[in-house]
């Protein structure tokens, strides 16, 4: 084996040592998180925030939320939008559909806690009751929202769907002198 051959063998044997060069060039790539800011881009989707002044309690976000992180509960006096962060997958579908822009996305992801209550948020709405039967119809905020769009809604906005139908039938009766056949 001549010098050339020896050199070739040496390079081959030392091949694996190239890793040292790679390592020294790369240097340290980890961050001293949490003492340094985490590596997230501005496009990151984190936890959502619901602005209770803008939310009207329409429930659109509840319908699209894939894991049921958003739920709506209604009793006689209130309608409550509940957000449970523990279930949220940060897809931001709720932001897409909210008609009033009440939901805002944040970059927040450090949500670990030892108190589960920290993971629940809610927006409480007062409800409008039907002026005929007294059943809850919609939220006050929703009523205002609709009235702002169309004043004609004043006629029926505070009526329960059933009472609304009754009213409609009565109106038709009045107009055509028609009586429902029994």
């Amino acid at each position, binding site marked *: 084996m001549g010098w050339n051959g020896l050199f070739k063998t040496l390079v081959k044997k030392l091949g694996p040592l190239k890793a040292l060069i790679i390592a020294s060039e790369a240097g340290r790539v980890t961050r001293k998180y949490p003492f340094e800011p985490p590596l997230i881009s501005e*496009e990151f989707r984190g936890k959502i925030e619901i602005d209770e002044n803008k939310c009207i309690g329409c429930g659109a976000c509840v319908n699209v939320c894939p894991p049921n992180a958003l739920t709506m509960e209604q009793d006689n006096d209130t309608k409550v939008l509940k957000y449970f962060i523990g279930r949220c997958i940060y897809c931001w579908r709720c932001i897409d559909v909210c008609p009033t822009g009440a939901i805002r996305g944040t970059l927040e992801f450090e949500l670990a806690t030892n108190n589960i209550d920290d993971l629940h948020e809610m927006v409480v709405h007062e409800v409008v009751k039907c002026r005929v039967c007294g059943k809850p119809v919609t939220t006050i905020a929703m009523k205002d929202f609709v009235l702002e769009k169309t004043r004609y809604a004043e006629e029926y906005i505070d009526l329960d769907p059933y009472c609304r139908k009754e009213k409609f039938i009565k109106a038709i009766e009045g107009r055509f002198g028609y009586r429902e056949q029994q």
Partner: protein
Amino acid sequence: MSGNSPNNKKSIVDEYVRRLSKYASDIKFIDDTLFAAIPSNSFREAVKLVHDEFDCYLRTCAGVDERPVNGFFAMYYIFGDDRNGLNIVLKTYADPSKQVFPSVTDICPAADWCEMEARDLLGLEFKGRQQYRLVLPNWWPKNLYPLRKDVPHDIKPKPSFTGERVSVGRKGSSAPIPVGPYHPALHEPEYFELYVEGEKVVDVKYRGFHVHRGIEKLAETRMTYQQIPFLAERICGICGFVHSTCYCQAVEKAARIDVPERALFIRSIILEIERIHSHLLWVGVAAHLLGYDTGFMHSWRIREHVMYLAELLTGSRKTYGINLIGGVRKDINEDKIPKTLEVLSIIEKEFARLVDTMISVPEIKFRLKETGILPKEDARKLSVVGPTARGSGLDRDNRRDLPYAAYKYADFNVPVYDEGDNLARTLVRVDEVFESIKIIRQLIEQLPKGPIMAEEIDIPENRMAVSLVEAPRGEDVHFVITGYGKPYRWRVRAPTYQNIPALKVMLNGVMLADAPLTIASIDPCFSCTDRIVVVKSDGRREVLHLPSQWGGMGCSRL
């Protein structure tokens, strides 16, 4: 291969129709899929024709409870003719009083698992084969078949504690060695029993499906069309975008929704980003399994660039959350393109250097070469997919054979190696990283302008479609029958489902020390953890159930 002229394709379809019409009562051809309904008494002959004479692969089979619609249970066997870019769906009915189907496992062994899955989940019986419980746990009550339409999605039978015995001395003098219930490196639940003689593995038993999650049932009962993409991407902890794309494509195909070009390009770009990150992850894990942690660290260091890029383009490191039926939700706008190209050059340069260094370590090469061999014939019979197939000389790749998204606009090679060993599968993945970089560059250059979401999305009921996506670990299949507001049936077949049975062949005769690497060489994706197995001092194993919210991310079983 994909360069089939439409005329040629038409004559091939005609040939299928001509020869199948002997058995089939009803044949339809839509897009690239041939649907044929065949009575159960001549079903086996039809399968023989398609599998043996037309040389089609079995993609998967799916049981469907069609009783609410027509009073029958049905089985759909989905075959693929990759050379001609066709899907062949053979459907058969069973007498509703007996629910017995003819088994076709002797014709195509790849049907073994999906038939047993249909038996577990729908209570169908298969004549002419050995039957056993596959996906449901042992304690699950008999006569409760979760995928039947009259079974609600939220039943919770009370689990009971059952034990499973390690079967000692199965093969002569061989000794059993349990591997699992977690994979030593992939941290996923799976259980292998390796039978060794000396240091050599002579047989292997696999027990999987520890974590059946009921995803298909969930989608068919309580979710809506546009919510399911977010569930689909959670099938897998790595190829999430693959699953959501595959689902969306299936519904789009069934409903004939026109997806804007730009959205298709974005899908392809993100799919390739996912492939790069998956392969870099795998190379790292393989190095780790070989004791070469330097390689592991550097592979993952390079991978971090891709993860950051994924977050920049989709809003999530895991490429989650941008697919919807009809398009995508996030645009790749102009100012993100330079960053993307920059990251691609970094990866290209650094990965080439790392591979070069890694392969020059003699021990690495020595342990990869000629271990875990899967011969071509076995690969064909088991219909394996992805790098596992391409490492055994099978030239299949859906991106080229049945192009979807924007792949028809990209020019790329499909690496194929004939050796069938761990080295071949590694090299396929290494080459694919560079091919993916090439694809992304081409697509970015041609990225068309326009909207990213279809304007009108209207999904009629009772349509069917098969959709395929080449995931990093192989072909992913979604089969959809549309229903009202949600799919009537959604069947998912993840690539690992097809590849695990091949491990029996690969592990035969390998040294015990090479077994973990060989198992990892199919890049398996087992599933998320929701129960653990306790080995008692007397050798009995007990199953302990954890609340499901403890489940991690993870993978391929549904």
